[in-house]
């Protein structure tokens, strides 16, 4: 394979358009172009995944040593929560209750995480069957939550405003966590870690709604104070 024009092209002394025009009438350069296309096609075929199933665990461990930490689930949506609370009357801002609620949320988040950590398996990816089971469980929670919401949310209107704020805050926080998990799962549905966070959040939401209902059962007196 020899052509002076090809050598010029390879040295970068000839631009592609000029070389193409030349190649139209030169069998050597036409062959070179065909080989280039083949090289590119062979290279694209290397776009196969390289598996490294335990790599994240190694990275996670080294990041932990470097000082990175598990997300404090309850803390994250606070900025968003503050914005949302703007739609309530301004007197919410001066409630002494807010720092206590924030502290509660932090403790709650850490509690959920450590509670899960002690019982959850450490595998990163769920097998298909396990994934189907987990999704079924999530759907069961969602149904239970819908039923509870129908009863609990109207009853919240009868509570003292401080209570409304407490439960609203907790529910908004949990909803934000559920939303975050769903976004992460949209990218990677088989991620066991995120699934565990989601199940925990759903369970927590169910418990909060059940708590609202049990308050009403014990004390039917409306607009009570904390």
């Amino acid at each position: 394979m020899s052509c002076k024009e090809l050598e010029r092209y390879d040295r970068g002394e000839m631009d592609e358009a000029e070389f193409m025009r030349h190649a139209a009438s030169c069998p050597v350069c036409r062959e070179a172009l065909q080989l280039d296309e083949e090289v590119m096609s062979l290279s694209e075929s290397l776009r196969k995944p390289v598996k490294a199933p335990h790599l994240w665990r190694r990275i996670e461990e080294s990041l932990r040593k470097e000082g990175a930490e598990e997300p404090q689930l309850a803390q994250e949506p606070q900025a968003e929560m503050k914005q949302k609370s703007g739609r309530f009357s301004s007197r919410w801002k001066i409630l002494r209750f807010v720092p206590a609620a924030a502290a509660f949320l932090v403790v709650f988040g850490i509690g959920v995480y450590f509670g899960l950590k002690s019982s959850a398996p450490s595998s990163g990816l769920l097998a298909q069957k396990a994934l189907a089971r987990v999704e079924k469980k999530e759907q069961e929670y969602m149904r239970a939550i819908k039923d509870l919401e129908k009863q609990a949310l109207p009853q919240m209107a009868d509570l003292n405003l401080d209570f409304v704020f407490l439960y609203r805050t907790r529910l908004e926080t949990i909803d934000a966590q559920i939303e975050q998990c769903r976004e992460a799962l949209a990218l990677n549905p088989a991620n066991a870690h995120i699934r565990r966070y989601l199940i925990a959040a759903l369970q927590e939401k169910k418990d909060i709604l059940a708590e609202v209902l049990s308050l009403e059962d014990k004390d039917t007196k409306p607009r009570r104070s904390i």
Partner: protein
Amino acid sequence: MDEEVIIEKCKQGDLMAYRMIYERYEKPFLRTAFRMLGRQQEAEDAVQDTFLKLHRGIHHYRSGTRFSSYIFRILINSCYDVLRKRSPEVSLDPDKAGEYHQPSSEPRHSIKEAIAALPDQMRACFVLFAVEGFKQEEIAEVLEIKVGTVKATIHWAKARLRTWLSASRKEEKE
């Protein structure tokens, strides 16, 4: 979740955010590192090192830069570090380092081996372009070189690989 939000969470030291980054980049990272280094274990080490460097340096990241370019730059530098550490005779000299993968006197039977034999920077350019589908401008950002240099480097890589393929075809015929 928006990448900027994830980056902000990374800056706060949130492990889950790092996990999200990992899940987004795991496949191209492992492929690129493997093509750069030719060994699975070293490729994994380079990816791990990338995350450590990301954690240490994420506060310096500014949103004006493309995050993918920023993080790939760290990966490629981690690969260069591995190559540098390998053995004294292996250097980043473009005309020598590639020989580690496949001595030029030995025949190369596959495109993998032919790519592995390219000099380091040429290999990085070519892998990002032909395997990962990066644009030349993105490669220039990753490798911190001019777009013209990227263009020329890819061109030379193609010419080398074409020569290999042509020789390989002739060998098959004989």
